[in-house]
């Protein structure tokens, strides 16, 4: 579903991604781990074109991200096209980024109504079901700042799911949470994976990667150092840098 070939990205002179190759199959859960500054989040943000890639090819469902290829030439996509594609990809952020001026329900309902033009009643019905699913059926009319971090992140997941995405991106979804709140968010993500959602998860939760991930990628310095089934990589890292990193976080 997601295919990256030799993806490069720089900010000025700093090369954040130096040739990323990977592939994610439908219904697969890919976990990306690595030290901060290794380019994990940047790569994730390239997938829904929040960042532009400089070189290489990156495609979702066989279509280039942010570009359109015709007759051997690459054309930049119009905003409308970029938005249409983003609407099919859900994203969950480290700092939740819920809309603070809207209640949980309004957060969840906003994009289906405004972007997809869904009927308000229908969107609310589905929103209620989604909030129920993440265990917040009783917080429908509550503003984000009245929720705990874990609850906010679960609303954020419901908000992304409301667009019925074919792919979900998680950018360190539990890094900003108090330790005792991590579990409730991971439970929701585990449920999603079991339902067959295609997911790319940037995380420091090695337990989650081992248990839920179908594949694991270790990134460092803008390259993929090591990739494979999570159990293998985590138990027997082959590369020195992977070993050094894992010895610190496990």
């Amino acid at each position, binding site marked *: 579903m997601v295919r990256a070939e030799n993806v490069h990205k720089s900010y000025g002179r700093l090369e954040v991604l130096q040739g990323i190759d990977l592939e994610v199959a439908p219904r697969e859960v890919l976990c990306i781990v690595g030290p901060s500054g290794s380019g994990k989040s940047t790569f994730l943000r390239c997938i829904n074109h929040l960042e532009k890639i400089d070189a290489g090819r990156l495609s979702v469902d066989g279509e280039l991200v942010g570009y359109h290829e015709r007759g051997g030439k690459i054309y930049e996509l119009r905003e409308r096209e970029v938005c*249409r594609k*983003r609407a099919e990809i859900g994203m969950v952020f480290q700092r939740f980024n819920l809309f603070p001026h809207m209640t949980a329900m309004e957060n969840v309902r906003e994009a289906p109504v405004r972007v997809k033009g869904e009927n308000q009643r229908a969107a609310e019905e589905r929103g209620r079901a989604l909030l129920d699913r993440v265990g917040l059926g009783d917080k429908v009319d509550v503003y984000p700042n009245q929720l705990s971090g874990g609850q906010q992140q679960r609303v954020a997941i419901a908000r992304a799911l409301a667009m019925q995405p074919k792919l979900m991106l998680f950018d360190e979804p539990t890094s900003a949470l108090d330790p005792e709140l991590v579990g409730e968010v991971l439970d929701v993500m585990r449920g999603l994976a079991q339902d067959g959602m295609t997911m790319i998860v940037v995380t420091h939760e090695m337990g989650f990667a081992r248990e839920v991930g179908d594949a694991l990628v270790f990134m460092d310095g803008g390259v993929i150092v090591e990739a494979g089934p999570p159990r293998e990589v985590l138990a027997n890292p082959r590369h020195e840098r992977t070993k050094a990193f894992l010895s610190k976080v496990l």
Partner: protein
Amino acid sequence: MTTGTDILGTPLPAPAAQGRPPTIQAIPVRHPWRWVAAVVVLALAVAVVYTFATAPGLDWSVVRTFLFYPEIMHGVLVTLALTAIAMLIGVVLGVILAVMRLSANPVVSSVSWFYIWFFRGTPVLVQIFFWFNIGSILPYLHIGIPFTSLVWVGTTNQIVTPFLAAILGLGLNEAAYMSEIVRAGIISVDTGQTEAAQALGMNRVLVMRRIVLPQAMRVIIPPTGNETISMLKTSSLAYIATVGELFFIQKEISNFNYDIIELAIVASIWYLAMTSVLTFGQYYLERYFARGAARQLPLTPIQRFRRLLFHTHDPVPVVTAVEPPMFFPRHRP
């Protein structure tokens, strides 16, 4: 009740048996100088007010006569109309200029910069005067649709009435200030908000309208309230364009009866009344846009008054986001 163990496994001592100790009843520190200061300040204030209120030349009956005089009332209405229309122009044009200023297009953002530089850099009085006298350099206006023969020609003084000249001067000047206020509001919103909205597939217009501007409002409203109050007073400069607003009217009357101070007091009473109403309006507007920002909405003045009467011993609610409005009016002219 079980007692715990510490990290080494040693049992912790059982909690004290006597329960919660009595609440501390301390004798408060006395502040005698506060009383002295209060008495001195109050005495001075009373002296000043008394001196002016009983000034031998001041005839309060004149103030009473003219306070609800039909011409004065009409002046109040014109002042309100000037303020409302000029602020409307200021806010709408200000939002447009702010968005232009943040545009990626260098020409668009430079034009906005230039506009702000020009209209903020010249006095409002001069600007009103300019529009009032525009007819002297452009006697005729041609309004037409390009490449067609549809043209309307008229004298400038037909179109730019004194009222319109004042509106243009006040409104275009205000837009320059408002655009800076709006811009500050827009950039105060966390970029994560824009990203989250974009990731949901919202386009730039939708992100601005539904996500960024509503949050920017919290930052925009207090200074806009200041601007409106300031505008109410600045609108008195329209007298230079012979617009019959409150200041112009009271001046006309005092030119006739020489009760200068009395009529200035009449005008001041009306200006104060109008700014007071605006102060309340702003308070409720801020309360509305504080949704989701404060854990508990601040009490309205009426609620606070009721609480003062009936619940004097309740703990005061913690107000985190919105303070009651305070004004530091700016003197522009």
